[in-house]
């Protein structure tokens, strides 16, 4: 019986995702633990500098991530390797999320909300074209009513649309 059996974890292929994930966390923590004393004053216990707390948190995260990486029981606990379908859906969602920032700057809040809701409905959740268009219009109108009319939030206008 392997430790994976004890945990009820999956086949070795299921271990790759958490192992890579925790290795990345360990590497990031280690990089921070090295970078902090080089960039921030750590000081002493009685006269701590800005880096002391950060160094403590970085070392804690590194050590714990390393422990998780080395212990399959911890590594696999509650971890779920995303399925191909989940990864496809998240990959479909990414353009909307990543383009939201430049879109808000250029197109303004109204048009950005409209295309994000339409895109999400049509491409991320697989709703039909017509339903997506109707629902996106309704959701956008509702959100703009709440934020612009009811709450009177002064959003900056889009540089291109002036909306």
């Amino acid at each position: 019986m392997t430790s994976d059996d004890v945990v009820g974890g999956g086949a070795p292929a299921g271990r790759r995702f958490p192992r890579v994930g925790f290795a990345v966390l360990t590497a990031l923590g280690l990089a921070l633990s090295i970078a902090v004393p080089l960039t921030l004053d750590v000081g002493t216990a009685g006269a701590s500098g800005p880096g002391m707390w950060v160094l403590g948190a970085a070392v804690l995260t590194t050590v714990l991530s390393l422990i998780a990486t080395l212990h399959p029981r911890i590594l696999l606990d509650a971890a779920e390797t995303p399925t191909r379908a989940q990864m496809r859906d998240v990959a479909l969602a990414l353009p909307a999320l990543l383009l939201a920032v430049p879109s808000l700057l250029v197109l303004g809040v109204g048009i950005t909300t409209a295309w994000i809701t339409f895109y999400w409905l049509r491409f991320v959740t697989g709703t039909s074209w017509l339903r997506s268009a109707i629902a996106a219009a309704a959701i956008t109108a509702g959100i703009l009513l709440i934020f612009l009319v009811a709450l009177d939030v002064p959003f900056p206008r889009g540089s291109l649309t002036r909306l």
Partner: protein
Amino acid sequence: MDIIEGLLQGLEVALTWQNLLFVLLGVSVGMMVGVLPGLGPAPTVALLIPLTFSLEGPTAIILLAGVYYGAMYGGTITSVLLRIPGEAASVVSTVDGHAMARKGQAGKALGLAAIGSFVGGLFATIVLILFSPILAEFALGFGSPEYAVLALLGLVLVAYTSAGSIVKSLIAVGIGLLIASVGPDPILYSSRWSLGVPDLIGGFDIVAIIMGVFGLSEVLVNISGSRHRQSMIQSIGRVLPTGRDLIENAAPIARGSLIGTGLGLVPGGGGVLASLASFGVERRLAKDPSLFGHGAPQAVSGPETANNAASISTFIPLLTLGFPPNGVLAVIFGALLIQGVTPGPTLITERPDIFWGVVVSMVIGNVVLLVMNIPLLPVFVRIAQIPPAIMATITVAILVVGAFSINGNTFDVGVMVAAGLVGFGLRRLGIPPAPLVLAFILGPLFETNFRRSLILSEGDPTVFLSSPTCIALVAVLGVVALTSAVPQIRKARTRIESEA
């Protein structure tokens, strides 16, 4: 100000038409959140924060608190009728509650749960009224060492009682502390990790982080589920319990009130832990435990009472010590900070309008929920039929627009998206988001008091054992680390949350 005076002021605040409207809105949204599987109270409260920017302090907290305890009521409906827990604290009811529904007693189960929730909520509110001023007065004597040890104890307890591995929960704490360290040093005020980016000089915005880690990551985790839908509505039957039902369930409701109120005070506690503990107690005390799992009313009334009582008593540490004991309260802590209010022992004296207004609104909210729950059951059952695709889309749109509304700055939208993606990755690795958010919020408080204590004591670590309160808190920390009960709680909680 004595309790009577406070309650009168609370009535004055809570009975304004605006606050009555927001109690109704809060509990209605909470009920809907409870009914809709997939969207828990923490992401919803995070989602609503931008809507509170233009509200008065008491109104904002009344709204957000209403969502939390309203969700406890709503979660029962889908647990009983559809065997789908609307939120994690109602998972226990999926077994016996649904078994009752299959016997044609759905109405009885829902009615008992509603009445139990009302009693539990009322009991916890009375405890909140009676003990909060005493606890706040005691906490006024706290210095930096006490606050540092309290923050450490809180983070450790949250990590220990979270679902999954302790190591993973503590990693979440470490990441939260690291994210919180970006920005000004709280002692020397020098900039840390701003990397020449003006938006980073003040650190990450608390709302953007909360919305991303709780809200967006939740949408991404459930993204595939939003394509599918299951529906299995049962007939409800008679909703009002008979006098005999009430007599038979009086003791479980009383015990649920006590258990829920007690466990709500524990960091990391709240509805899930309370309903689980109540279920265990009821099964142990039952005359015929074999009925449990096959539609025992006590297995619904006790746990449902406990989870609502816990959702109210969990406000005691927040409003008196400035300590949020779970993820939802961490979000409400953030909302208070945005309102310019620092939760803590001085809140009751400096902002009695918020403390007493919120307390009285809880009583009103529980009455509203009881009244609304029974006649509006068919409406909430229909709400459970809203396609998840629509809910997910509304959530994403509110997250983007809400993050933009924080400062009218797209940087916050970017932070929200980044926090959401990080939260999604961490959740897939089995790292829970709540300890991360709590550490992010408690980080500055913890660091300030930890470093200040060491500076004042010239680096002597025994400063953290310098008072009876410190010693007691350190002793509790030791007991937590050594206790054997905690792993059992964790295992049960992990099972319950995975079922949810």
